[in-house]
């Protein structure tokens, strides 16, 4: 328990520190760009408003641009208005160009008027107004100071705890696979921090009541894999793999959309619906139930018929997408139904809903597995099926429950996925989820040969995979090529985690502590 406490303190501290530095870097970057572009000084509070929100920043700037152009050229050059879609920095450059043109075109008076107009009708005020509604977030400077301070404090506490710990088994920590996963994750983040500190900035958007930022996005987007990973961890602990999860994601989405959109009495109704044909509770429950049953089908094949899990689940992997196509009759339904949108895109407790769903699911699974004997059953069946049968464990039922649970979790994940795109996509929904889930389980330290498993490790694994993707996107690499980077980073992690390397590391650190101990004595 203690070992975990240090790690959690250290990681949370480091993350807070990084977020603080990221916010600071972002504020500096924004401040610099505004100073250089407008040569007007604003109070820190207005920067706070910039800090809270990426999106508003762009619109505010666009307003500014419009104001400058309108005042400078009398609204004649509407065509030169910089486009709203442009990235803020590029937009600022365009403004500069427009300003230069304005200087050439009209006399200085008009320019002064323009600047006055900006100063008077500053749209920043409205932003600050909305911003001040959120209590405690009034001053960005204060906030990032608090973040950096808290981060430093937590790091310090962790270091002090580590130093004061008497029997800290460094070798055991080095031998643990999760340690290496966490180190890998932190290394990726450190690289991010060095190259682009803004990566870590987190902002609050009042309009959608959600925190925004790359870190939030990583956790948000890893939700599907984390949820599936909970089931996959236990499947792998049983010594098998479940390849059908991606197909089940497609089936779940197809069923949900069909229940919302398919109206037998009115088959030609084509407009995007902001309603649901069947009650929403059915839309939620039927896909989950069907996925549970399909998972149970896998469980029967593996448990009762004793088929090899890879092949048994390959059946549903191959035919699952076909089933999803048949459910929707090959159609791609779309919906505008707002309660459904909440699942994937809404906010809950100032966080995107998928994060909250993930936390609830993970907590439920952990309670079920670790507070009952079920986790131990799974491990014992994974280690030695015949011995556990002799000791009175009904391995068939354990296998059935694990596979059915994985099916259910894939169903939940499918609902989140289809809610994100507000549509069903039988060919691409959940594609490669099975490999991502298996990878996150393995990176998290669960052995493919079955036995002991770590749900926490799986969460770390799925976050690592998402971090790599977000990281690579952030630095502007094309989505197709992310695979190469993913492969390289995963290869490094796997080599670090491989048995010979870990043993070597553990031996080295053991030798070092022994030498140290000897010197003290």
């Amino acid at each position: 328990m203690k070992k975990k406490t240090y790690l959690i303190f250290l990681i949370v501290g480091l993350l807070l520190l990084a977020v603080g530095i990221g916010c600071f870097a972002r504020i500096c970057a924004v401040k610099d760009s505004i100073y250089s572009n407008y040569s007007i000084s604003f109070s820190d509070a207005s920067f706070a408003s910039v800090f809270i929100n990426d999106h508003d920043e762009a619109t505010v700037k666009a307003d500014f641009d419009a104001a400058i152009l309108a005042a400078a050229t009398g609204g004649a050059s509407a065509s030169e208005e910089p486009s709203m879609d442009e990235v803020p920095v590029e937009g600022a450059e365009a403004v500069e160009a427009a300003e230069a043109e304005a200087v050439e075109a009209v006399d200085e008076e008009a320019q002064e008027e323009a600047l006055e107009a900006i100063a008077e009708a500053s749209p920043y005020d409205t932003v600050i107004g909305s911003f001040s509604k959120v209590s405690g977030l009034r001053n960005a400077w204060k906030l990032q100071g608090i973040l950096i301070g808290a981060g430093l404090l937590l790091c310090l506490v962790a270091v002090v705890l580590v130093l004061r710990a008497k029997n800290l088994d460094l070798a055991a920590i080095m031998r643990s696979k999760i340690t290496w996963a966490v180190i890998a994750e932190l290394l990726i983040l450190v690289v991010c921090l060095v190259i682009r500190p803004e990566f870590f900035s987190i902002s609050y958007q009042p309009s959608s009541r959600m925190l925004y930022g790359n870190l939030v996005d990583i956790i948000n987007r890893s939700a599907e894999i984390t949820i599936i990973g909970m089931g996959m961890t236990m499947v792998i602990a049983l010594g098998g793999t479940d390849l059908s999860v991606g197909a089940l994601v497609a089936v779940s989405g197809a069923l949900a959309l069909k229940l919302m959109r398919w109206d037998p009495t009115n088959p030609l109704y084509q407009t995007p619906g902001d309603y649901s044909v069947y009650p929403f509770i059915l839309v939620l429950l039927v896909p989950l139930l069907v996925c549970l049953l399909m998972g149970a089908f896998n469980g029967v094949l593996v448990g009762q018929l004793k088929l090899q899990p890879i092949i048994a689940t390959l059946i549903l992997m191959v035919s699952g997408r076909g089933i999803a196509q048949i459910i929707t009759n090959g159609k791609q339904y779309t919906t505008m139904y707002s309660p459904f949108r909440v699942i994937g895109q809404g906010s809950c407790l100032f966080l995107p809903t998928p994060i909250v769903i993930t936390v609830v699911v993970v907590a439920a699974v952990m309670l079920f597995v670790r507070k009952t004997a079920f986790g131990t059953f799974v491990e014992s069946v994974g280690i030695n099926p015949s011995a556990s049968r002799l000791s009175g464990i009904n391995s068939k039922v354990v296998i059935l429950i694990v596979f059915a649970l994985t099916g259910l979790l894939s169903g939940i994940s499918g609902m989140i996925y289809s809610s994100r795109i507000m549509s069903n996509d039988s060919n691409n929904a959940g594609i490669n989820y099975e490999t991502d889930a298996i990878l996150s389980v393995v990176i998290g330290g669960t052995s493919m040969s079955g036995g002991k498993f770590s749900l926490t490790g799986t969460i770390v694994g799925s976050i690592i995979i998402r971090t790599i993707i977000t990281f690579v996107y952030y630095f502007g690499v094309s989505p197709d090529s992310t695979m190469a980077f993913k492969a390289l980073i995963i290869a490094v992690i796997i080599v670090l985690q491989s048995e010979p390397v870990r043993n070597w590391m553990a031996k080295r650190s053991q030798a070092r502590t022994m030498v140290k101990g000897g010197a003290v004595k």
Partner: protein
Amino acid sequence: MSQKTEKRQSLFSRIMNPKYIMVYATVIIFLIIYAYGAIRYGKIGFTTLRTFVNFFTDNAYYGISAVGMTMVLITGGIDLSVASVASLTGMLIAYGYERMGISPVITMLFSILVGIGLGALMGSAIHYLNVPPFITTLTGNFLARGICSLISRESISINHPLIDALAGFKITLYHMVDGEWVKIKPITKIDLTVIIFIVMIILGTIVLQHTRFGRNVYAIGGSESSAKLMGLPVGKTKVAVYAINGFCSALAGIAYVLVVKSGWNMALQGGELEVISSAVIGGTLLTGGVGYMIGTMFGVLLKSVIPAIINFNGTLSSWWGKIATGALLLLFIVIQRAVVSYTGKKKAN
């Protein structure tokens, strides 16, 4: 198992050896499905030789890859990188000629070297670092696919006389009518890819059944630790098997290029599972130690028969093909399971 006793057995008892029972199950299922097609669609040309040859042509590239995959599965491993290595081969050939002007002969040889090298690398990671084959080859899959996308994200078509010549190389079949050689009607042609496929199956059979290397492969699959204790070169054999598989995937990539005459970064997506399921339908056990090339060949044929029946039907949509493949897989595995438990009980008795 000395050779003398085997030679003394009659041909019949040698063929009816219970160890081939899985292969026979595959052959029988293939014949049943073929007979169904022949009865239903015999009038519209299902029974012609051309249709039969097309079973080979349709999935020849999967078949070539399945030869290497069978060996990997017999050692108890798995290789998920085959499809992306094949796709990488296509991309190398296409990009090499169309964008850099390198002759396809050089890029073909180079891509075969890449395949062998990647296979050997993965094999050594599996053996020496003790990483599960599933994870190692999955990483290899991502790597090959990622490199493919780094080279080009667009499909590149190949216009080279050599590729055209190889793709156009076909053997027309003749038969004797009244003492004269006449073209079989409808005109039946055997592609180069089919020839490679069959040659690879024969080579694979020879390597597996009649060489020391082949016996090592089976021994490792049966029990790796026993093989090690017996003093067999486990590490070398495993690395070699993955290298051979890399060679087969590169060759499959070349065969695929001959079919589509282009390189695409997303080509053959999901092909690795097609290949694995072909081998498994052919009676190869994923746990290792059991499997025959001839069974794999029938596994590949089975994979072409079902789409053929759907095509001949004409009214079934393509997603029924997916479900049919799944159902067939289920049927076959259940039969396999029943056979294994039956023979197991018989042995016990």
